[in-house]
């Protein structure tokens, strides 16, 4: 019925969000809304002394948007911008795939659970909103990847 959308991993992240409302020394934040449904998310970004990223988020929304934010924070926290970039690119690509892409678990880990979301055009924005906020916050904090190669 809805198993393709509501994967166990998604429900688990929805129930036990990781990285939500964590106190960090934030360098920038981005607030995004989904104007069609009113869901909101704020992503804050900071940097550890070793150059890796610190990510925290807060927001309200449906299971897909909340689980996606949780997975995003888990995947990106502690990665350098260069390590994060290919993950972000792979997630974008997966969301555009209309369910036609076999996601790479090596890169996307828990985020592969969102493959089914790409079959529901109305829900793609739900899954993407936290990732959009992340990219925006990175630009504001000048914490984007210095290299653009996909497999560094």
């Amino acid at each position, binding site marked *: 019925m*809805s198993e393709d959308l*509501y994967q166990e991993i998604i*429900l688990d992240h929805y129930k036990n969000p990781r990285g939500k409302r964590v106190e960090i020394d934030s360098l920038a934040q981005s607030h995004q809304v989904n104007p069609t449904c*009113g869901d909101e998310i704020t992503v804050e970004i900071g940097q550890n002394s070793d150059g890796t990223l610190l990510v925290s988020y807060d927001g309200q929304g449906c299971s897909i948007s909340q689980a996606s934010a949780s997975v995003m924070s888990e995947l990106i926290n502690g990665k350098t911008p260069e390590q994060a970039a290919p993950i972000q690119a792979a997630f974008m690509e997966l969301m555009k795939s209309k369910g036609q892409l076999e996601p790479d678990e090596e890169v996307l880990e828990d985020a592969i659970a969102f493959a089914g979301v790409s079959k*529901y055009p109305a829900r793609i924005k739900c899954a993407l909103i936290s990732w959009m906020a992340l990219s925006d916050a990175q630009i504001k904090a000048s914490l984007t990847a210095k290299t653009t190669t996909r497999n560094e």
Partner: protein
Amino acid sequence: MFDVNELRADFPILSRSVRGVPLVYLDSGATSQKPTQVLDAERHFYENSNAVVHRGAHALAEEATDAYERARQTIASFVGAHVDEVVFTKNATEGINLVAYAFSNATDKARQGLDVDQRFVIGPGDSIVVTEMEHHANLVPWQELCAKTGAHLRWFGITEEGRLNIEPGVIDSTTKFVSVVHQSNLLGTINPVREIMDMAHAVGALGMVDLCQSVPHMPVNVHELGADFASWSGHKMLGPTGIGILWGRAELLNVMPPFLTGGSMIEMVHMEQSTYAPAPQRFEAGVPMVAQAIGLARACEYLTDLGMENVFQHEQELTAYTLAELGKLPGVRVIGPLDTHDRGSAVSFVVDGIHPHDVGHLMDSMGVAVRVGHHCCWPTCRRFDVPATTRITTYIYNDKSDIDQAIAGIKSAQEFFGATVAVSA
């Protein structure tokens, strides 16, 4: 009373499947489905009489113009209006903007020292009054007008029950314009628009009503509402998309500055300046939506054949049933009036611990099409402290079995999420 099963045969889309199960369409508040009679009327026009209206003198142009103007007459009669007071627009949103821009344009012209009707000149010290339950279409244009002119926006709030809180003093001597929704598309509330329009007139203000959710669902006579303007869309009342109606008192329409300008709306054109045709042509610049007008007129005839009183009764029964069934579900809260008194068929609700998007998705997987989100009434959602709602809206082709399927969908969402997820904040 009409037979729902019989008339469903006029709506081919209702017999299709979605996601592998039969479709249950409960989103007519967003847009209604169209009977073959309406589609055939449009097709017949294109196949037999298609030509540009009000230009040209050949046989087809005459037939097309005649069909277009007969459509206007049918639509006018449907709401008890005079034919010259019915302006075709793209949709309700455009009709409301047309009036907002009359104020804006008159105010601009007055600043240039041009002669304009003072009822449409607005500025600092003046106020415009709306309500907290307006669709964005009847809120944002007035916010814009206020931003451009320095006028103040005020509004009537909403009670816990979902009724307007008509406090004294909101409409006062500073008020130049009042615009209110007849039936809320989110709460279902039917507002006492006559009373509010009388309040507006008592202080010398003009008044408008948004009839999007009332004209399709109940008998409406525009004159009995006591308003100066009214706007609604054709697509929510069995008609095509791309056509809406602005109704206005002729005396006002004929002194308002035009909204869109160009061909067809002029009287005389010189290189330096032009004069404009009387309403309704004054507001119908460019080649209009002829086939849609003909389709909408056919929709009015279809509804007249059913009887608008019957349509209203049918939906009252369904709404009572919907409210009763939702009332039996623990953890489900209706946002809006809980009985059918002064209430239409839009029923919004929230389910404890499950986001409306997820409720809607589970219902969709059972074939039930409902709307989720803020329904273009974001401030109304905020008033009730909910991010969004799930909304059931019915029409002539729905019956109790559709509501039963919706209830089953809600239960399955509760089982699915309740069993697996105790949502943390």
